[in-house]
């Protein structure tokens, strides 16, 4: 949970990105090596370590998927690559659909919307599991979220390439 502690935030999946950002900026203003140009080598080294840690922690917490993965790791929840056969089927259908609509921008945009919706509903489910402390069965859900997140990036990439 140290990443949360650095920013003085409660270790929850839901967090205010505005608050996180404010805290990040304040900390970098305090610890960035630029602030220690005239300081001793030892202090400069400490500033470098702190500033690096703040950057790393921010990168994880600002991203909803990475944040969830980090929390799961902190809770020592067992994870595996397993996914339900139903979702694996859906996954294959999505990949085929993308392959079939590579040049059709309207289809791609519609597909992106669908995937975004699927991602959002699963993420809400994840939030509920966290707030209800139902953490043991979270691994499969997390894998689905990771897939959907990557997949929507892939659709966006395709859209960007043809437009």
């Amino acid at each position: 949970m140290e990443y949360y502690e650095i920013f003085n935030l409660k270790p929850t999946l839901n967090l205010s990105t505005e608050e996180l950002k404010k805290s990040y900026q304040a900390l970098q203003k305090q610890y960035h090596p630029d602030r220690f140009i005239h300081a001793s080598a030892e202090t400069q080294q400490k500033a470098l370590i702190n500033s690096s840690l703040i950057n790393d922690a921010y990168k994880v917490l600002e991203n909803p998927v990475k944040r969830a993965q980090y929390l799961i790791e902190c809770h020592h929840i067992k994870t595996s690559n397993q996914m339900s056969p139903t979702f694996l089927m859906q996954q294959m259908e999505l990949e085929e659909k993308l392959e079939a609509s590579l040049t059709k921008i309207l289809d791609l945009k519609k597909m992106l919307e669908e995937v975004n919706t699927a991602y959002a509903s699963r993420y809400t489910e994840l939030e509920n599991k966290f707030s209800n402390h139902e953490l043991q069965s979270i691994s499969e859900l997390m894998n689905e979220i990771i897939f959907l997140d990557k997949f929507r990036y892939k659709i966006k990439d395709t859209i960007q390439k043809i437009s």
Partner: protein
Amino acid sequence: MALLQISEPGQSTSPHERKIAIGIDLGTTNSLVASVISGITETIAIDGQPLMPSLVSYDEKNLWVGEHARSSKNEVISSVKRLIGKKIADIKLENIPYSITHQDEEILIETLQGLKSPVEISAEILKKLYSAAKARFNDDITGAVITVPAYFDDAQRQATKDAAKLAGIQVLRLINEPTAAAYAYGLDNNIAGTFVIFDLGGGTFDVSILKLEKGLFEVIATHGDANLGGDDFDLVIRDFIMQHNQIDQLTVNENRQLIQIAKEIKTELTQHDQIEKNLNLNTLTLHIKITQNDFLTMSQDLINRTHQILKQALFDAQLKTTDIDGIVMVGGSTRMPIIQNTVKAFFNKDLLNNLNPDEVVALGAAKQADSLVGNQNDAALLLDVTPLSLGIETMGGLVEKIIPRNSTIPIAKAQEFTTYKEGQTAMKIHVVQGEREQVKDCRSLAEFVLTEIPPMTAGAAKIRVTFQVDADGLLSVSAKELSTNKETHIEVKPSYGIDQNIIKEMLTSSITNAEEDKNNRQLIEAITDGNQIIELTQNAIKIDKALLNENELNTIENHMQLLQDAIKKQVTDDIMHLTEQLNQACENFAARRMDQSVKTILTGKNIKEIN
């Protein structure tokens, strides 16, 4: 790991003690030095000019830098920035108009005062800039911020820093050129939001997207083309003139003159809508008539390339054109109206171009320097990113990315390694830079061996290797054996610099490697076809050599040899062409063999039928 306690105070901002710091834009063509003087950022003149050409020349005793180098009548060393931090294999020797040699992999320039490294030559340029600043401020300079292109890799950054040290300059920070430009605008105009830095220089093009907010400058994406710049527009104008005057060929000298003419026309077109005049080129009289519209039409390919890179940078940042609050124009080439207009149209927004595009980088560096030494209360903080991913080689020549590109610096990442043999006491670590999956497609940055690992059973030793990229973007590596807590610091001596073209290639290839993979496939197919026809021909000769006269046999064997050579050299077009030629050379031979086999068959049939 929690944050470390720092007892020493940060920036001291005692109001009476004002420190002087300078910003240096060490450019390929021109260099500048600037400083904040009585609250105003201004350039410091060198030989009476704000821009100093980045030129150095030597005779046996003397040294000239800048404009004096140009007029010294000695061989002029130019564009040394293209060599700094590189090894000999990275550069194209024919593109360099002065003599170059090498010692091992290190590039050395031949001068009348002996061999000089690019770092030493750059140091001479920096010394002249520095002494102009020292003269201006009575020697009282605390340090300097030096700018580097956003794509400079570890070796190039390190070499630039070394050059500054050699020039006796205290380097406060290396910052990216586009970042410096934004910094100049950010503070001058007191703006906040998301900005695109459009930097079109003489030979390079860079796009950066920055977020400016409450004193924070965050670079969220950078992209570019190391082979696109104002010079390409000169060539487009040259081609236009040649086409309209029915010129097919030029001598080297005429070509040089015509490019110079084209450059002048390009400059005139920043002021006028149309240029019409007659000019002499040796014996030829050229009629030249170019409108702004003509210029736009002939430059369409180049402009499309700038648009592609803008799109890619926007995509990396996950932004739309409407998310952009402003566009900062940097580099002399952005003075072209066709560039101004097309960029304006691309974003549907007015441009920030009220600062001199040649000076804006140096001005930003000066502001940053002033802020770093503590002169500006509530100074802005500049957060920059890594231009290329850092990774290490894993089994099977694959790359494991440790620090992805566009990570905010400073950044540290630790990775644990273990031994795979009984009693293993050493381990090799290979650090690479690039975006591709395979080590061979990335650039080797450093290779080192961790030694003195305590001998244990395989997999028992745990070595944590920490990769640290500091605020200058420079990499250092340290390693710790966890069971014994034994720590080693490794000085990463970059083994290679990266050629700008290779960086460009590495960046674009990760995105568009479909094209490259297609080319690879074509090559493989061509080689397969080529080898197949060679094998068929060899077999045919073995069996039916009698069908060929000596001359024909020689021709076929020659063609086979040529094709085999081309396959060795792996040039797709040559292989395809020579495969076709061999095919043609064998045409008669194949026909005769066909005849013969038909005869045999017919003969056989006849025999059968008779029987």
